[in-house]
């Protein structure tokens, strides 16, 4: 139940009590609340849980993971003659 799914914001709107967004999950578009993510903008990838965007996915941090992996691979090659 704690899984959140990444999707991309295609449109935002002010609606009644809070900001909402239309978020595309690989083509499937859903209405999502931005109540706890006021800084989210169109084009951002957000993690969505129970109809709420809970974080903007940080692209630089996402890339970081693969940098670490490359370093590991390089280290392994050094070790094995």
């Amino acid at each position, binding site marked *: *139940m704690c899984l959140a799914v990444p999707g991309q914001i295609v449109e935002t709107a002010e609606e009644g009590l809070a900001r909402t967004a239309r978020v595309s999950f690989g083509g499937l578009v859903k209405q999502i*609340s931005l*109540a706890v993510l006021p800084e989210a903008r169109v084009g951002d990838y957000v*993690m969505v849980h129970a*109809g*709420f965007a809970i*974080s903007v996915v*940080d692209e630089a941090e996402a*890339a970081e993971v*693969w940098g670490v992996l490359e370093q590991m691979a390089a280290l392994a090659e050094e070790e094995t003659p």
Partner: protein
Amino acid sequence: MRFVSEYRDAAACQQLAQAIERLVTRPWTIMEVCGGQTHAIVKFGLDQLLPPQVTLIHGPGCPVCVTPLEMIEKALQLAARPEVTFCSFGDMLRVPGCSQDLLAVKASGGDVRVVYSPLDAVQLARDEPDREVVFFAVGFETTAPANAMAAVQAHELGLPNFSLLVSHVLVPPAVESLLSAPDCRIEGLLAAGHVCTVMGCHEYEPLAARYHVPIVVTGFEPVDILQGVHACLRQLEEGRAEVENAYARSVRPEGNQPAQELIREVFEVVPRKWRGLGEIPRSGLGLREPYAALDAERRFGLTDTDVPEPEACLSGQVLQGLTRPMDCPAFGRECTPEHPLGATMVSSEGTCAAYYHYRRQRGLQSPRSPAEGSA
């Protein structure tokens, strides 16, 4: 942009597994707290990629599993009332109470509906003013902002026919209860990434220091999990016990502040009984006074009843990482996902169900490549 598919990359998983193998010099036991991670580990066979010295044990991080039977009974009582439309996330529907589950209540005429978001339940209450709409507010910190927002909306709209059956739980107090147990085997912990996305990492710092366990905030895809395991083992091998964030693409150290404010606005910390673990102080959320009118237990005058667990079920032990599902005599015999005895078999994120689905012929199955299983 890399989100899901590349985090399931088999080559990257192999690379991480090899890095882990080079790192490990002795046996270690690591617990992943979250049911979503348990599910991914068993589904992708990640534990089988790890060197034999590394044992992963599974924690109590499945809100469906830890919801106490009394609460399920209350849900069943409410759902059976003719004036009530009972709304819940889908995975609560099949949790057995003493004699039946919500699906059975639905089959015998109860108005039980699955919603995707608690806001859908609020909308239902607006659309159908003649019905009493009750939402089953379960979950960890990840779900709490959404449920809090439902309460705020209902309150602001002055909806007289909406209420919440609240059985919210908090992860760090449960982790502390496990770490302080005399038979605790946990040497390192993977903390659930989406709980930390909301709450940040600070609550784990005193725990890492007091119990001298490294706590690594970890994501849910195979690469994320192996990276979390790697970071945790590196700390163990170096004798460190720090809080480390291996899921920084979603988790900021301070968490999501507006979400935390919303939770504090609506909820207060209360003691909560956990299925299998008993009552843990300060481990749950209950509605604060301004929102107490939305409390379904009050509105419908529900009282506490003591409901014993089925005797054959070891899910309490399974939730604490003390027993493995296949060591339960009922596993796959009297207890299956079709006829579950305990909640850890019912919920798709439950440890018993994960093992049943992916590891039926245990030991007979060769390690699977992570790329094989795609959700």
